[in-house]
């Protein structure tokens, strides 16, 4: 096996290539205001790590810690800047003078529906989330979204009943709820997003015929004999078959 290797890494070791070594910059500290209280934290900390650095055990306001779950929505302001900024505490870095507060929950009502009983039409959206038609196109939601989504565009698409477009534009929504909190028309954008995504997956998808075939095969016991045979095989025989199997390119 080894002989076939194109370039064994060991060969490189002897070459006189010297790569530079890392320099260790000193950890600088910055001052932040966590719900108004001053704290000095490392400059390279995320907002979440900064809060923990002060000794707080976060109970509400942290979930995945990697930007997927939306538990950690945060509002902040920076010195000399009148604007309210938003971010996910787990992926946003602190800045000197940052004044912040986490918003661990946004009050709202989720519509209750039976997916099997509804249709992928604008009427469905209208029935469950009538407030979307109050949108004044102010674009605040889009400016708010920490995921950088075109939120206003998907709200507008929902008003047109363009469910595929809502699906596409809201695909990466983490449901942090910050857009809903800032919306002057009191719309719950992300709830409209999940409704439309489910409608798309259920009713507007392209059908996968090969999947039907496979499900039927299994139901009809096409693989039963082969399963039985393999389950009865000794480890050695299985191992042999495994290492001899062909691999799709």
């Amino acid at each position, binding site marked *: *096996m080894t002989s*076939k290797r*194109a370039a064994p*890494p*060991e060969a*490189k*070791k002897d070459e006189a*290539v010297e*790569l*530079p070594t*890392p*320099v260790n910059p000193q950890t600088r500290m910055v001052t932040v205001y966590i719900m108004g209280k001053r704290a000095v934290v490392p400059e390279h*900390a995320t907002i979440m790590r900064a809060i*923990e650095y002060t*000794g*707080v*055990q*976060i*109970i*509400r306001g942290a*979930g*995945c*810690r*990697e*930007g*997927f*779950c939306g*538990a950690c929505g945060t509002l902040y302001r920076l010195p000399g800047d009148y604007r309210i900024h938003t971010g996910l505490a787990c*992926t946003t870095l602190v800045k000197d003078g940052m004044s912040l507060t986490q918003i661990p929950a946004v009050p709202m009502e989720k519509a*209750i*529906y039976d997916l099997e009983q509804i249709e992928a039409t604008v009427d469905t959206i209208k029935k469950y989330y009538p407030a979307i038609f109050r949108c004044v196109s102010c674009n605040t939601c889009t400016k708010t979204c920490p*995921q950088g989504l075109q939120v206003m565009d998907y709200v507008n698409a929902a008003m047109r009943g363009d469910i595929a477009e809502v699906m596409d534009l809201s695909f*990466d929504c983490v*449901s942090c709820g910050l857009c809903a909190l800032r919306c002057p028309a009191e719309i719950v954008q992300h709830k409209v997003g*999940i409704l439309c*995504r*489910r*409608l798309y*997956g*259920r009713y507007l*998808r*392209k*059908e*996968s015929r*090969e*999947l039907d*075939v496979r*499900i039927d095969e299994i139901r009809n016991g096409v*693989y039963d004999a*082969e*399963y039985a045979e*393999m*389950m009865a095989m000794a*480890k050695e025989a*299985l191992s042999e078959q*495994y*290492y001899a199997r*062909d*691999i799709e*390119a």
Partner: protein
Amino acid sequence: MYPEYMHESLELAAKTRPARLELAKSGKPVYPPMNATEREDVLAKFHPDFTSGARSKIRIGPNKGEELTTEVTEILEAHSMVEPRLMDIHLRKPDYETDLLIIGGGGAGCWASITAMQNGINSMIVTKLRMGDANTMMSEGGMQAAVAPQDSPTRHYLDALGGGHFENKPELVRVLTEDAPQIVRELENLGVIWDKMDDGSMQVLHGGGTSRKRMVSCRDYIGAIIMRTLMDEVKNHPDKITVREFEPAVELLLDEKGQCAGAILYSLDTEQFLTVKAKATVIATGGFGRLHIRGFATTNHYGATGDGLVMAYRAGAHLKFMDSVQYHPTGAVFPEQIAGFLITEKIRGAGGQPLNKFGDLFVFPREPRDIESAAIIRECTERGLGVDTFAGRSGVWLDSPLIDMIHGEGYTKHQFPGMVRQFNRYGIDITKLPMLVYPSLHYQNGGIEINERCETNIPGLYVAGEASGGVHGRNRLMGNSVLDYNVFGRRAGMYASEYAKSVKLGNLSLEHVSAYARDMSCAGIQTDLVSPLILPSYAPEDVKLQQMARLGNTPARHSMLRTRFGRDEGKTAHGKAG
């Protein structure tokens, strides 16, 4: 932005790229896959499971005498959070009663509640943080399902067994692979949006250890899409499924016949202990990445502390394969803020290649995870060919720019929006520059032993998902755990609800917890650890010391602190909490 000192290495990677692109296009493996002997060798020498101190013998309980992962032995040889005597009156007057108690609001838990409902049984989901604050939410790459015509469920079976070194329980692998196509269909009927080809057929890709393209996906947000769909469905039935958030379970309850009869919860908001009486119980608590085994950074969510293992073990459940840990080959090493962040294996499935500091390939990009991880560790340690960061980490390049070169411009952005966004936040465009990676603590291979009906050796106790043990042997392949929580979560709901229809419960008891405490003292175990951990504490050590100075009755919440005190996670070579 990559710092100056990495530029030279980055240039070397760019220089070797055209030749590597040719190789990738040739259709042949870009590097020779290892044979069985080579695999064994690299594992034995470089996999963290085999380093000294990685395992220690457990002195009490059903697995007594076995070598388990040290950090697991530690939380099993620890004190309960509750004093059984003080709970007596509450056991007689439970706070909640339900037919089916489901512990854990991730993928497996949601499925169990949905299939129980379909079977006419109401359930209660109790979960640690919010619903969906779970590893399920985070999966990126995909799910294995033999849907393509050139593939078959039995091929999937062989691949899964080979990946698990033929130690998996065959009957579990059979239902895993056999239920998979049906799961794909049921998920899309619930509204999950699969990646499809123009003709509607499922898009399939390779993952580590697959012999056919079998990975189905939802861009790189499969977890978020499935999790939010299942959660939305659960919340559409408030009359049949009750949800309690921020109320993790800390002990199981048994009756005098030894049947599982519910659990004690601990309210994170009020620090109260609450009693739930249930005819059947499903543990769906997920994995243990936040134990920071061997000091590794982790990809897991905040609440992944292996609580299910602890509760079930004290109640007498048998654990399987708890001596092995999965390190994902490609956790981010740079920038420091996202150390441990998972770079999906699909990047390698789509053509991304691991490179050493000279820009050279050193391993086949799609070896099974344990092998790939061990090979990367070898490159960075023994061979010294990793790229060092100023935070004291070392890593290898994962050459992502190749992907657009292979599949066409725009492909990376469309297929990996999460990845592109995450690195863009720190000024790194992964379509132009590679990512720096090192193995990250990822998955609990073993767990509470189950059969294909999700039953354990305790009547009335069912387990599904990452908390269970047996299906993956000692090494899970990518895409098989998303499949696992779907297949077994769904099964757990079906079988547990059926059982709940006929079981007769006796009186609730915590006697097993008292007995366990007696066993601990007989075995001479001295510890100040309290488990389950519930949440890790990331307060600096000096702050923890000041918090621990409190006199008298330590509030339960502080068990998190106490358990984490002096354990130095984040201070080792492998890095910090992610």
